C-alpha cells in the first residue's frame, strides 16, 4: 500500500533528492507517495514543519542546531535524519568592485581587506552554511575587513546586487550563476574551497517524528538515498537538469542547472568557465551520513558567534544529527556504514578508504582552507 507523505522544499538545485525521489519512482519503490510542497522562504518552511503541514523538509543544516541552541525563531525542536547535499555555495562580488582572485580564499581575503571599504554581503538566511562559511573565511583570511551580513531571498540576489542593496553574496546554485548572468557578478570562491565537506542541506523533521513513525521515516530515508545514488551517475545529469528546470520546480533555465550539476562555474560574464572539484556532493563518500561532528562544528561556530558556553553547545548540537536513526533505517539496504559517528573534520587531504560495517568504504577529501582540523572527540565526555 502506498501512503502520501507531505514534504517541503525551496526551489534550489539541492532540493533535487526530494524531487528525484518523487518523480523517478524511488519513493514509490518504498511504498511512499511524496507530496512536494514548495515554500517561498526558510521561515515559512520551518513554520510548515513546526505546525505539521509537512512531515519532513529540505532544511539548511544550521537551522536544527540553531533551534536546539534557542537561536532564532521557530517553535519546535528539529532534527536531521540525513544529509541531502554537501556544499554548492558560491561567494561573489558585484561588477562595481575590482575582481578578486578565484578559488584562492587566502589571496582573496587579503585582496578583500585591501579594498579598504565596508561591504554588504547577502546570504539566504541568518542561520545558514553560507553565513557560517563566510564568517569562517573572514575571521581567518580578512579579519580587518568591514563586512555586514544581510539576509536576501536567493531568487532576489541578482536584483539586490543590481539595485545596489548588497555588494556581494554567498548563495546556493542556481542563484550565484544567475547573478553572474543577470547582474554581471564575479565569483570569488565556491563553498568547497572553504570547507569541501560542509553539510549544506539536511532532511529535517520535528524531533521525535521519526521515532513515532519509524516505518515512514525509514522509507523516506531509503528513497532519498536511492535518489542521490541515481543522481551521482553522470549519465542522468541531463535528465535531472531538465526536470529541475521545470516551472513547477525551480523555474530557471536547464543550462544554468546543468552547469551547477556538472561543477562548471562561469566565474564572470565573459568567462572563463572553471571546473570545481567537490563543488557539490549528493552521494559520493558517505555524503548522506549525518555525522555528529558536522553538527558539532556548526554548534561550535554558533557558540562562538553568540557567546554560548562551548561544551554544552557542542553536546546539544551533536544530538540534532541523528546518525543512530540513519544507521537503523539504512541497514535493510545492506550498505556499508562507518563504525564511528564522529570524524575529525578537515583531516583528509584526499579520498581515503576505511573499513566499514559491511566492507570497505570511501571517505571523501575533507579540508578547510586554513588547514585546521575540527575534532570534537577531545571535547566530548566519554560515554
Amino acid at each position, binding site marked *: 500500500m502506498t501512503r502520501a507523505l507531505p514534504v517541503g522544499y525551496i526551489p534550489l538545485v539541492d532540493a533535487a533528492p526530494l524531487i528525484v525521489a518523487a518523480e523517478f519512482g524511488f519513493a514509490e519503490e518504498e511504498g511512499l507517495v511524496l507530496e512536494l510542497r514548495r515554500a517561498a522562504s526558510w521561515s*515559512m518552511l520551518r513554520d510548515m514543519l513546526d505546525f505539521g503541514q509537512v512531515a519532513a523538509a529540505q532544511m539548511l543544516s544550521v537551522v536544527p542546531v540553531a533551534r536546539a541552541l534557542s537561536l532564532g525563531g521557530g*517553535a519546535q525542536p528539529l532534527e536531521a535524519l540525513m544529509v541531502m547535499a554537501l556544499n554548492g555555495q558560491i561567494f561573489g562580488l558585484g561588477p562595481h568592485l575590482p575582481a578578486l582572485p578565484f578559488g584562492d580564499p587566502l589571496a582573496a581575503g587579503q585582496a578583500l581587506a585591501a579594498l579598504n571599504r565596508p561591504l554588504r554581503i547577502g546570504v539566504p538566511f541568518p542561520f545558514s552554511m553560507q553565513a557560517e562559511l563566510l564568517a569562517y573565511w573572514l575571521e581567518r583570511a580578512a579579519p580587518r575587513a568591514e563586512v555586514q551580513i544581510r539576509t*536576501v531571498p536567493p531568487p532576489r540576489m541578482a536584483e539586490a546586487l543590481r539595485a545596489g542593496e548588497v555588494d556581494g553574496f554567498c548563495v546556493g546554485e542556481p542563484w550565484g550563476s544567475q547573478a553572474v548572468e543577470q547582474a554581471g557578478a564575479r565569483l570569488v570562491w565556491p563553498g568547497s574551497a572553504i570547507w569541501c565537506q560542509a553539510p549544506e542541506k539536511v532532511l529535517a523533521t520535528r524531533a521525535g517524528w521519526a521515532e513515532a513513525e519509524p516505518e515512514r521515516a525509514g522509507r523516506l530515508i531509503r528513497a532519498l538515498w536511492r535518489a542521490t545514488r541515481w543522481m551521482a551517475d553522470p549519465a542522468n545529469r541531463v535528465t535531472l537538469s531538465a526536470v529541475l528546470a521545470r516551472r513547477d520546480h525551480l523555474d530557471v533555465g536547464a543550462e544554468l542547472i546543468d552547469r551547477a550539476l556538472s561543477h562548471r562555474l562561469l566565474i564572470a560574464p565573459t568567462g572563463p568557465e572553471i571546473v570545481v572539484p567537490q563543488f557539490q556532493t549528493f552521494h559520493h563518500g558517505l555524503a548522506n551520513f549525518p555525522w555528529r561532528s558536522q553538527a558539532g562544528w556548526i554548534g561550535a561556530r554558533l557558540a562562538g558567534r553568540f557567546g554560548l558556553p562551548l561544551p554544552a553547545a557542542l553536546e546539544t548540537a551533536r544530538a540534532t544529527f541523528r546518525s543512530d536513526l540513519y544507521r537503523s533505517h539504512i541497514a535493510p539496504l545492506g550498505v556499508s556504514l562507518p563504525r564511528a559517528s564522529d570524524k575529525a573534520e578537515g583531516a583528509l587531504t584526499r579520498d581515503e578508504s576505511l573499513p566499514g560495517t559491511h566492507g570497505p568504504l570511501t571517505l571523501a577529501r575533507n579540508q578547510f582552507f586554513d588547514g585546521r582540523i575540527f575534532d570534537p572527540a577531545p571535547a566530548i565526555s566519554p560515554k
Partner: protein
Amino acid sequence: MSESLTIIVVEPDRARALEIVDALREAGNHRVHVLGDGASLARRVTELRPDLVLIDITSPSRDMLEELALASGPTERPVAMFVDRTDAGLTRAAIEAGVSAYVVNGLAADRIRPVLDAAIARFHLFSRMRSELAATRAALEERKVIDRAKGFIMRAKGIGEEEAYALMRRAAMDQGKRLPEVAQAIVMAAEVLK
C-alpha cells in the same frame, strides 16, 4: 487599547494594500507605512522601528525579519503578523501553535482590532517578562560575586564575614564604585593570585 502604533505593511498588490491600510485606520489612529516589496524592509524597519510588521506568511521577504529580530535583540523586535490569503491551513495551524501569526481574511476593521490588541499585549508581556528575568539574573550574579569576594577577603586577612563585607563596602565608597564592581575586581585578582 488606544495607543497609536507604527505599522509596516508589506504587500505588493496595491488594491489589497489600500484595503489593509483602510482597515488599520478604522481600527485606530495608527501610523501605517506600505512597502510594495520586501527589498527595503530591513532599512525601513531600522528607520521606523515599527510595533508591527504585517506580511504575508508566504512572502519570500519573511526571512529578513529573522535577521532583524537577531540584530535588535528579543525585547525590541517588532511583532511579525502574517496576513494570509493563500494557505488557510498553515495560518490556522500557526494560531493553534500559539505563535504571533493571525488570520486576517477580508480585513474588516472589527477583525483587525482584536488582532492588533492581542499582538501588542503579547509583545508587552514578553518584553516585561524578559526584562524581569534579566534583572533577576543580574541580581543573582552580583550576589554570587560579592559572596566569593567576601570569602576571599576572609581567608586572606583571617577576619570574619561582617568585617570583610564592611571592608569591601568602604573600598567601594572610597572609590565611588558600586559594590559588585569592587567585588568583581577582587574575584579577578584572586583568580590571578591563586
